[in-house]
């Protein structure tokens, strides 16, 4: 047998086929990947240590930076953990506003995701459309919170303030628009034969493998494993909302993309349920936060998790009764998807699917490095 010659390809950090500040070194034999090594760490900012030096109330301003496309879930995860620790009950309207923000954030993250995967296989139109439509969601965020990307809005105790008058109608109008757009996305993208041909059967993941590797979120549901933090460990207004866990069977690239597409529709439905409820509720009472200057959390520890657009995003908070967290640990979904799972699953794929697999797993590099 002659010795086969392999070459090393560097995907990133300066490469169009990478999800951000991240790098993968793949060893390629012909057109097939035989070995892959992910190189994270370009974006390490030491969030967990930084949190120990800050007050409880300063947390949300920092940790929303952990995942750029989906910052609200970080804020809410931290807020949920602190609330559990302190025994704070958020008023009903506050919980609903929180859920509204989370679902809107999910929509905007999925629009990014659609464009990301489509861009990795060359369908740039979806990316441009997605980012354009996402801007309408950001407009609403700006109206509600004053900020477009990092909202710093979901504090422990509830959202900072109530919705502005007429906000629910604007949200409903946007949902109608997004529903219409989704039909166009279907025509262009999800029913595109080339997309289906490339994505079907590429990098399938079994349910057993997903359970072994702690895969969560849409990636796990795409394998047929019905887990969802919104159902399993309810937070915000999710216990009151009516929805089912959507699953796919195959667990390949196609199933992962379609899973998100289905959840996009579900999110629109959830947001409509929330706005319907918000209209009926008395306005004003959204938050219970003690005076921030005397803000003390009793000693103890608590874990608060949310179902982010990428998977389970949890915060483990330890308090010693001081003015800030004694220790904070973040459990991000991407460290499993982007490092362990990706490194194993990319072996045996074609070079053309190295980027596609990474985008289909929805890896968020800042969440890996933290």
């Amino acid at each position: 047998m002659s010795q086969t010659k392999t070459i090393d390809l560097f995907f990133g950090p300066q490469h169009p086929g990478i999800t951000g500040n991240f790098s993968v070194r793949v060893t390629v034999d012909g057109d097939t990947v035989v070995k892959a090594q992910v190189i994270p760490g370009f974006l390490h900012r030491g969030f967990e240590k930084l949190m120990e030096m800050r007050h409880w109330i300063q947390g949300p301003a920092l940790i929303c930076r952990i995942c750029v496309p989906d910052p609200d879930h970080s804020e809410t995860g931290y807020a949920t953990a602190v609330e559990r620790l302190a025994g704070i009950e958020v008023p009903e309207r506050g919980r609903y506003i929180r859920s509204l923000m989370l679902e809107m954030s999910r929509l905007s993250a999925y629009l990014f995701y659609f464009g990301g995967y489509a861009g990795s296989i060359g369908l740039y139109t979806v990316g441009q459309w997605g980012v354009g439509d996402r801007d309408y969601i950001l407009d609403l965020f700006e109206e509600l919170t004053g900020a477009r990307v990092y909202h710093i809005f979901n504090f422990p105790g509830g959202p900072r303030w109530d919705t502005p008058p007429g906000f629910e109608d604007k949200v409903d109008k946007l949902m109608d628009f997004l529903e219409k757009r989704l039909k166009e996305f279907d025509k262009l993208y999800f029913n595109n034969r080339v997309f289906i041909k490339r994505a079907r059967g590429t990098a399938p993941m079994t349910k057993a493998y997903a359970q072994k590797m702690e895969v969560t979120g849409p990636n796990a549901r795409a394998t047929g494993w019905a887990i969802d933090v919104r159902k399993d460990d309810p937070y915000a207004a999710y216990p009151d909302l009516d929805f089912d866990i959507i699953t796919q069977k195959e667990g390949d690239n196609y199933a992962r993309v379609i899973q998100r597409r289905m959840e996009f529709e579900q999110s629109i439905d959830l947001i409509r349920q929330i706005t319907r409820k918000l209209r009926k509720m008395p306005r004003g009472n959204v938050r219970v936060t003690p005076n921030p200057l005397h803000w003390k959390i009793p000693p103890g520890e608590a874990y608060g998790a949310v179902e982010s657009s990428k998977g389970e995003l949890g915060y483990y908070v330890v308090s010693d009764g001081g003015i800030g967290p004694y220790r904070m640990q973040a459990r991000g979904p991407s460290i499993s998807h982007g490092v362990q799972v990706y490194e194993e699953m990319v072996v045996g794929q074609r070079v053309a699917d190295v980027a596609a697999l990474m985008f289909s797993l929805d890896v968020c590099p800042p969440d890996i490095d933290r």
Partner: protein
Amino acid sequence: MSITDIVAIIGMAVFVPLLGLLFMGIARKITARIQNRIGPPFYQQYIDVMKLFSKRSNISHSWVFDIGPIFAVVGMLTTMLFIPMGGFQLLSFDGDLIVIMYLMVISGLGIALGAGASGNPNSGIGVMRALVLMMSYELPFVLILLSVMLYYNTTSLAEIVSKQADMAWAVLALPLSAIVADICLQGQFGEKPFDQPIAPAEVATGPMVEYGGKYLGMLMLWHAIAIIVEGSLFVNLFLGGGIVFDPSTYVGMALNFLVWIGLVFLMFFIALLINAVMPRYRIDQAFAFYWKWPTILAIIALIYVMVVSSW
């Protein structure tokens, strides 16, 4: 060769790249509109090429690397000489269609040589893909050329054009061949779903990854000429070369030339629209695609022509 011929050749060698760049600029604008963007102005490509050619630093890897883009541009320009352009025919002889087939491959090989010499694995994979892609679409395309040659009983492109002016356009006479040729044209243009050689997310723009500055400017010119040459080849084969008015008068000549530009742009426009709404195939899928339906249809078209022309 008279002095007018030399002036015409130089004039065409200047005009065709400029026209190609204009097409590329309009293409960016159209794609932008499809994607809900405003897009750059249509003359953006001229600015880009001028900027690239005014860059001072050039990183060279070897003399093969230097010569690759020149090779490509010269190869394409040479191909251009043999292609009738709206009534302007610079060089012509019996059998030039076969020469054109070879010359078009040569310019691709220039890029392959240069990019291969850069030593970047992304370039290497890109070149490999480009050669596989070329091999994929050449098979049905050669079969189509055979059918057209058989139908008009000549191997001269100029004669095919003039015979279409007398009879009907080949797109009406041989619709099946025209459809297959248009599918092959998508691959020749390198538009999606057949842009595997330069796929940014996969091989980081492939052959062009190590080229910058003046080299990249050369490659842009090469691409601009290639659009015109490949589109023009299709127009000559199937759309009568754009000859609709009487070419004996100056007004007729000028109008024919404009019609030719319009038809070449039409072919490019069709490719562009497909490009905007299609992802790319994997290279093995592209290969399987071309050697399946287009090849079968091309064989059917060839048999049809054989039956028709034997009557």
